[in-house]
């Protein structure tokens, strides 16, 4: 009898826990996400930034590429005519900020897609097959992770076309390893689940099991990681642009706007040329990070009841 009771209570507990975890997946997620104010604010800021990048032609007050050689139009402080002033070539900083965000965002999203796709596929194969294939594939990851990233980026930058796709490719190729590790870890535990065994018993191919059955169960951590990846990609792109390895003039990003402003005299005379792109990068990266943190807390059932 005691044993029976134990079975009954045990059963009820797991059933209850499970129901709680799953009822209305999206609703539950939204309730948890909403609790974290910082990430909700970050989410709003990010939406504003993305909208303004899309609507740049409408919001820009001047042609961002147009150079004014007239001295009186250069290095103007912020005013009602030039919201954020003009730079040393008489270009409107506000308009340049709007257009510059496009390259920064496009590069970082492309990077995220490249690195998540590559990392997820690599990690999935490594984790699913396990054994020797896994050890070999993970040693490759270890080697790549032990190389200094900046060094690698600078070398790779010499080989690609300095356009958005080229830059996204090199940043993507230097940042997929963490996704690979994450996905591999998830696969190692998920492949032992009985629904995977059932899939094998039903005669499904390995590809079908990996992509249709296991991968959809890893989406939550992948999404979180992708968000954080966008943040770091914006930073890396800015760094590359700052070093002059990013997109080449006349194209520009927030990072290359900073490069132009690194001259000490200019910085003294017209600090707004450096301050505003700097703030934009800072705010975007910070927002992506907070947003990612909020996502992780909301998607991770283990952290759900702590707050």
């Amino acid at each position: 009898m005691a044993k029976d009771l134990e079975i009954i209570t045990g059963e009820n507990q797991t059933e209850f826990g499970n129901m709680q975890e799953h009822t209305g997946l999206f609703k539950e997620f939204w309730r948890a996400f909403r609790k974290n104010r910082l990430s909700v604010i970050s989410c709003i800021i990010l939406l504003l930034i993305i909208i303004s990048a899309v609507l740049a032609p409408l919001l820009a007050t001047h042609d961002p590429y147009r150079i004014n050689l007239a001295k009186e139009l250069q290095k103007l402080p912020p005013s009602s005519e030039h919201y954020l002033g003009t730079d040393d070539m008489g270009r409107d900083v506000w308009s340049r900020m709007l257009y510059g965000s496009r390259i920064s965002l496009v590069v970082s999203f492309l990077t995220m897609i490249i690195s998540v796709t590559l990392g997820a596929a690599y990690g999935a194969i490594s984790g699913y097959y396990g054994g020797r294939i896994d050890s070999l594939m993970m040693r490759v990851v270890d080697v790549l992770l032990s190389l200094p990233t900046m060094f690698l980026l600078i070398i790779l930058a010499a080989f690609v076309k300095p356009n958005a796709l080229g830059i996204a490719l090199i940043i993507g190729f230097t940042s997929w390893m963490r996704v690979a590790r994450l996905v591999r870890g998830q696969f190692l535990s998920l492949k032992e689940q009985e629904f995977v065994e059932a899939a094998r018993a039903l005669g499904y191919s390995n590809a079908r099991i990996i992509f249709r059955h296991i991968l959809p169960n890893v989406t939550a951590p992948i999404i979180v990681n992708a968000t954080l990846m966008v943040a770091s990609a914006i930073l890396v792109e800015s760094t590359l642009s700052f070093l002059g390895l990013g997109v080449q003039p006349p194209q520009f990003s927030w990072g290359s706007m900073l490069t132009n402003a690194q001259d000490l005299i200019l910085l003294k005379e017209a600090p707004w040329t450096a301050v505003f792109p700097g703030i934009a990068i800072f705010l975007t990266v910070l927002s992506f990070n907070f947003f990612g943190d909020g996502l992780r807390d909301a998607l991770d059932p283990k952290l759900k009841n702590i707050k």
Partner: protein
Amino acid sequence: MTLPLLEVIDIKKYFPVGKESGSAAAGLVKAVDGINFSVYKGETLGLVGESGCGKSTAGRVILRLIEPTAGQIKFNGVNIEKLNFKQLLPYRRKMQIVFQDPYGSLNPRMNIGETLGEPLKVHGLVKNKAEMEKKVSYLLELVGLSPSHRKRYPHEFSGGQRQRIVMARALTLEPELIVCDEPVSALDVSIQAQIINLLKDLQKELGLTYVFIAHDLSVVKHISDRVAVMYLGKIVEISEKNELYDHPLHPYTQALLSAIPIPNPEVKKERVILTGDVPSPINPPSGCRFRTRCPKAMERCAVEEPVVKKIGAEHLVACHLLD
């Protein structure tokens, strides 16, 4: 005598332990160490034993979910232990499995319609979507669920309902043999009976053959025609169910059966209490594996491994006491 549907000949499964990538294994867990049995069409063979005796491993080896280290698996007289993925596909259709944990055995990201429709599509058993829907509805009704459940996800079902869905999935390919790996031990006692009865009804209706793995002896007695008792990777006794429950010959079987509670406080029962733990399958005892815990162990048991002897028509035992 008819040909058995499934014949397992001396299968072994050794798992390497303490293995670092590349280096040699520190030891071998002999999870299944040479077992033989046959299952005939339409019958249920119960496979019992305590935790860690290798019964689940045996079930998975039969289905080639785990590759056997040695031995033969014959399905309808055809050896399937060496077939590759493609050659095995037709046999995958004939043999299915139902797992213990109804929570882990359904993909949480697929709804029931997808879960049941996918095997039909993969094996090309349906021509179009309408036909698939029809088949899925038929399967859901077969296991006592409503066709309207097909849009729901696994988390919306209780444990018993999920086990019904798992049964339906196993039945999609119209198998002849189903390995039930402790299908009711994770369920509520009241639900257990329902699932057991469902298994029996389906067997009658579809002419299924079961290998029923469990540790609950009363459940096994209820559903099985024949019962095999496993201890530490070996089958110690196998017999027709009433014969086994009424006249257990192996000391281990006797001990197991004496542990079944009788729902009557007046009846005094003689219990055979086993002492000690199950020895490690990495380093099993010499001779008879049960000798370290056997109340009737002799000197001979440590030296010589007992061979399987036929007592009566269908009663096989491996014990020196019967010489």
